[in-house]
């Protein structure tokens, strides 16, 4: 009903005029118009990208902010320059702490997910092992450098433990068992390399590291068995068996290891036939760890030969 057709009293008209104005609030673009305009504007925005802040006149109102940004950037690059120079440093060298506790921690902090962080931690542990070999090949393996390596590796293992504890919801399942199993292999390989390259006594200092890694791995294994159904665990076992089979096929292993692996596979089959999934899982994972430990040690042997 049009208000032109039905004028009321003065007060009524007052409120009706306001009412009419209020109705204007509901006027809008159609959905398709709105969508089309948005699409055009976003295309425009993407084409006319963000300008470089450095092109803004330094005397503008935002100059103090830009100067701060420039100073921070400069400091950042100086810091990164030093970090870059530290990448080749070894335990006992001045820039080693910078490399391990600043640069690598920085890179670790930039990993987006907990899974990425865990992967990076395993990578760091592999690097520590590589450093030990390098020290050995350069005749720099001393009690001091071994102590630094041992402390650094212990820190990494502790970091992994706290990372896993912290992210109870995301870091679970087969991936964590694989990662912690890898860490056990690296720790055992490190212990073995120190024992071979330096002394059995020095390798004893790695016992705690190995023990912590094994505890962490076993805890994750138990959690996995408790949390997952038999079907999931069996599927995981099958995947691990495939991996072992491919390791044997590659023929890089010693005869005794190959024999041992084959025996283990028989044991796993027996356990599965008896529906002892837990036992099968333990055997299969320990087998994988043995293979990987040997691989890590062999890598170092190859390196020693090459150098």
């Amino acid at each position: 009903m049009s208000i032109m057709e039905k004028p009321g009293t003065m007060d009524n008209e007052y409120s009706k005029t306001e009412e009419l104005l209020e109705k204007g609030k509901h006027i809008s673009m159609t959905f398709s118009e709105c969508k089309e305009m948005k699409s055009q504007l976003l295309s425009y925005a993407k084409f006319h990208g963000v300008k470089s802040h450095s092109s803004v006149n330094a005397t503008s109102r935002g100059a103090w902010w830009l100067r701060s940004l420039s100073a921070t950037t400069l400091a950042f690059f100086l810091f990164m320059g030093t970090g870059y120079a530290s990448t080749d440093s070894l335990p006992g060298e001045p820039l080693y702490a910078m490399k391990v506790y600043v640069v690598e921690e920085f890179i670790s902090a930039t990993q987006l997910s907990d899974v990425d962080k865990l992967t990076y931690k395993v990578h760091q542990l592999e690097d520590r092992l590589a450093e030990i070999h390098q020290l050995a090949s350069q005749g720099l393996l001393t009690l001091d450098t071994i102590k630094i390596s041992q402390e650094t590796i212990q820190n990494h293992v502790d970091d992994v433990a706290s990372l896993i504890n912290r992210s109870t919801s995301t870091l679970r399942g087969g991936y964590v068992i694989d990662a912690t199993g890898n860490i056990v292999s690296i720790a055992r390989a490190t212990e073995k390399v120190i024992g071979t390259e330096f002394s059995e006594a020095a390798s004893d200092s790695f016992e705690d590291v190995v023990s912590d890694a094994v505890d962490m791995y076993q805890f994750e294994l138990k959690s996995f068995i408790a949390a997952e159904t038999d079907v999931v665990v069996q599927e995981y076992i099958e995947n691990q068996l495939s991996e072992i089979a491919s390791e044997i096929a590659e023929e890089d292993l010693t005869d005794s290891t190959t024999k041992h692996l084959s025996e283990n596979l028989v044991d796993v089959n027996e356990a599965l036939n008896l529906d002892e999934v837990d036992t099968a899982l333990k055997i299969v994972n320990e087998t994988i760890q043995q293979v990987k430990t040997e691989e890590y040690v062999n890598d170092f042997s190859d390196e020693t030969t090459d150098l």
Partner: protein
Amino acid sequence: MKTQCSRKTHTFILDVYLREIFLHTVSITMDQQLAQFEKMYDTHSDAIFRHLFMRLGDRERAKELTQEAFMKVWQYLASGKEISYEKAFLYRIAHNLFVNEIRTDKRTKSLDEMMDDTSFDVVDTHTHADDDATAHELLAYLDTLKDSYREVLVMRYIDDLPVTEIAKLLIESETNISMRIKRALDKLKETYEHNGKTRNHG
């Protein structure tokens, strides 16, 4: 071999990391600005369109100016500046665009011309039949007011801006704005009464 490869890989990764870091920062900035821009559009586009439509009386031109307003917003954001109060900022741009439009004498046709013009499309009649009637009626009344009255009524009752904000946008005192709103409303009421009487006598 593993150590050498590992070191080379590590060095390479860090090198790439350093080179990419600026691009990454710029990319993050761009993503953030785009997200803010998109959010601003989703939140305020209809209000800005409505404001311009009610002041111009021309739907198509209002759409064009709405788009222009948001392009100006992006230019501002892309230059690295920050917008602390989005709503006021957008109304300021819309108001300036409207003033420019008037100055360049591109204002839409009078209401009578509009009503006579069969091609005049107030709103999408297929989807906004009610809006159509409301817009015609509202524009008919608003067109009887002078611009200074029209703008305060649109800002107060359609844009729902408080008097303090209107005063800031128009760079006038709150008292002036309050008085003008009252006078504008009186004038509108008078027109309303007049139309009613005319109709009754007719």
